[in-house]
């Protein structure tokens, strides 16, 4: 009996080895403070991989493009653990993900950069990522830095006629950096920041924080994740009527906020997020693909997740193998000009051009994904308010 089991396992192992594939690692924050936001992002990653495989897979031999998913939990420790396994055990060619900035920075510094593996984050937006690399070119992202979002948010706040505001941010890489950019731009544009305090995530009560902050202003700029304290801060602020107006960013833009607090209490709330210009041809192509597959096309970072996965496939195709060393250069080549324009989903077309020795230039669903020297991309933003019990987004021009 034992022999049969062993030989069948061996046969199974051999059959998978014979089936050629290129693996990429995909750590995503499936658990942790923002699972609702991440679920559609993971679907977009799967959709991109499916598109690639449906159109003949990678290289002349049609090798399978396999996404190996892991849970990075929006947590630096969990991300380091997950990525270590992906790189050393699953032997992936590159990393697509992690979602959160803290997780991305931690795994890049302690795992992927030392191992010489490219990280292409789907949504990490902390300004700290721009300058984190010294002599390497391994960290890229398909989402715009919050250095831009902070400025957009400050303009939006002043545009709403709010001249004085209190700032409260969760003590992590993403929220602290965004709060700092916001406070600086708001002050330089003539606004007044009445208080600027960190709060510790995931506490049961923020009433004392809210009381101290509320002494100077009735508007609050809140930078937090909805699932680790953000909703509680808003609840405590509303319970005590400490604040009337709320502004914030990506981490708070979830249906959970409406579900838990009730739309009737959220009349003066505006959250911004990274968004796509729905007028472009690339977005049109993406929307058709996403609608057909039942993926919410315009949810935060969902197009970015598709772009990252699709660009990684193009880069591996360009590099000609899953060789880790060649991916960074290939990624820059396929994402930036010059070259023939490739829209989301056009893998077969890109493959043909690359096979003929031509150049391609991918136009992303989320916007042009042209990497600058730091591996960052530019982006546009949208503002969302509650309308008829749901978030309603509008692009900021």
């Amino acid at each position, binding site marked *: 009996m034992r022999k049969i089991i062993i030989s069948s396992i061996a046969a199974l192992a051999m059959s998978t080895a014979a089936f050629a594939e290129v693996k990429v690692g995909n750590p995503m924050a*499936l*658990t*942790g403070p923002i*699972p*609702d936001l991440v679920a559609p992002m993971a679907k977009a990653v799967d959709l991109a991989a499916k598109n690639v495989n449906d159109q003949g897979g990678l290289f002349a031999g049609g090798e399978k493009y396999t996404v190996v998913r892991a849970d990075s939990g929006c947590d630096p420790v969990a991300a380091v653990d997950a990525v270590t396994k992906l790189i050393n055990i699953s032997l992936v060619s590159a990393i697509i993900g992690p979602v959160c900035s803290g997780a991305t920075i931690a795994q890049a510094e302690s795992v992927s950069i030392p191992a010489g593996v490219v990280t292409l984050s789907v949504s990490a937006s902390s300004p700290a990522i721009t300058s984190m690399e010294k002599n390497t070119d391994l960290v890229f992202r398909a989402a715009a830095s919050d250095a831009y979002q902070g400025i957009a948010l400050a303009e939006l706040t002043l545009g709403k006629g709010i001249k004085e505001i209190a700032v409260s941010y969760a*003590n992590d890489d993403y929220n602290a950096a965004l709060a700092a950019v916001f406070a600086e731009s708001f002050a330089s544009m003539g606004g007044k920041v009445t208080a600027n*305090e*960190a*709060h*510790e995530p*995931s*506490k*049961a*009560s*923020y*009433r*004392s*924080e*809210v*009381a*101290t902050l*509320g*002494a100077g202003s*009735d508007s609050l700029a809140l930078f937090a994740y909805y*699932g680790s304290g953000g*909703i*509680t801060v808003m*609840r405590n602020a*509303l*319970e*005590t*009527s*400490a604040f009337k107006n709320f502004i914030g960013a990506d981490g708070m833009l979830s249906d*959970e906020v409406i*579900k*838990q*607090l*009730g739309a009737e*209490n959220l009349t003066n709330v505006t959250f911004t997020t990274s968004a796509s210009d729905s007028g472009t041809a690339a977005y049109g192509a993406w929307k058709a693909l996403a609608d057909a597959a039942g993926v919410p096309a315009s949810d935060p970072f969902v197009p970015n997740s598709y772009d990252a996965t699709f660009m990684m496939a193009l880069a591996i195709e360009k590099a000609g193998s899953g060789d880790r060393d060649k991916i960074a250069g290939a990624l820059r080549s396929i994402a930036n000009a010059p070259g023939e324009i490739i829209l989301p989903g056009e893998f077969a077309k890109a493959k043909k051009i690359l096979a003929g020795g031509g150049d391609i230039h991918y136009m992303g669903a989320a916007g042009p994904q042209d990497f600058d020297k730091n591996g960052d991309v530019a982006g546009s933003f949208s503002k969302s308010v509650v309308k008829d019990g749901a978030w309603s987004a509008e692009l900021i021009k």
Partner: protein
Amino acid sequence: MWTSFGFEFVNFYLIPGLVLGCIYALGAIGITLTFGILRFANFAHGEVMMTGAYLTWTISTLAGSLLGWALHPLIAAIPAVLAAIGILILIDRYFYKPFRDAPTIMVVMASFGMMLVVRSTVQFIWGPNQLTFVKGIDRPNEAVRQFTADFDMMLLVPNKHFWIMAGTIIIMLGFTYLLERTRIGKAMRAVSDSPDLASVTGIDVEAVVRATWIVGGFCAVAAGVFLAMDIQFLETTMGFRMLLPMFAAAILGGIGRPFGAVFGGLIIGLAEELSAYPWIGDAPLISPGYKTGVAFSIMIIMLIVRPSGLFKGRTF
């Protein structure tokens, strides 16, 4: 904008501190009892709180969808307490009992494992997303606000806080009666003081162990439900996040001293909230980002100055 209230210290620092203290106190009772009677630090205690809150949510949701009853969380908590105690006794029977004579460190590690098992099971059944416990905003009780405003001491207390404080007081009175007046309560105190002596005098130690899980589990589920009533949502790490302050409360009060745990819980809860009050000038005395640090500083100072805790608990 606070000038119109005048009573901000009480409303925004003292009462929230007391509410948090009540939750810590109930949780710390279970910790100090398992520490005193079973002699190990039970890391899975926070998960009992969390599981109790999830069970309560399930029962009130089922009652709402099947029977159309809108149960108050405190009513739905009654069957949830029974279910959670049943689970605890089963866990003790099949998981902790084989460890009864093992070195403490093994049981502590085992309880750590149990914590992860319970949390994963809950995530498996209910999913990793947050669940809404009570929807909407619970604004301060209007009658109390009007009444106290007449005396220039406007109290802003939402109804949920009255429930939490009243519930804690009732549970504490029942608990005092149990420990001081009943046979099993006296047996529990005896085992806590000296298990060998207790078993020589004919006390059924296994019965005391069961009673410990029942009382500890009851208080933990109450703490979990009160916590869920306060924050109004559920997530799988809600109990774990309370665990360390509850340990601090148990140590502060003295290990094996249930009343010490209650006292410690209130002190830790108040210290966390009051440390952020602008005692000097306009800025918070200590940035609220370091609230948890305040709780632990108190615990560490206590361990150095008076290792037996306020109520002369066990030292190790």
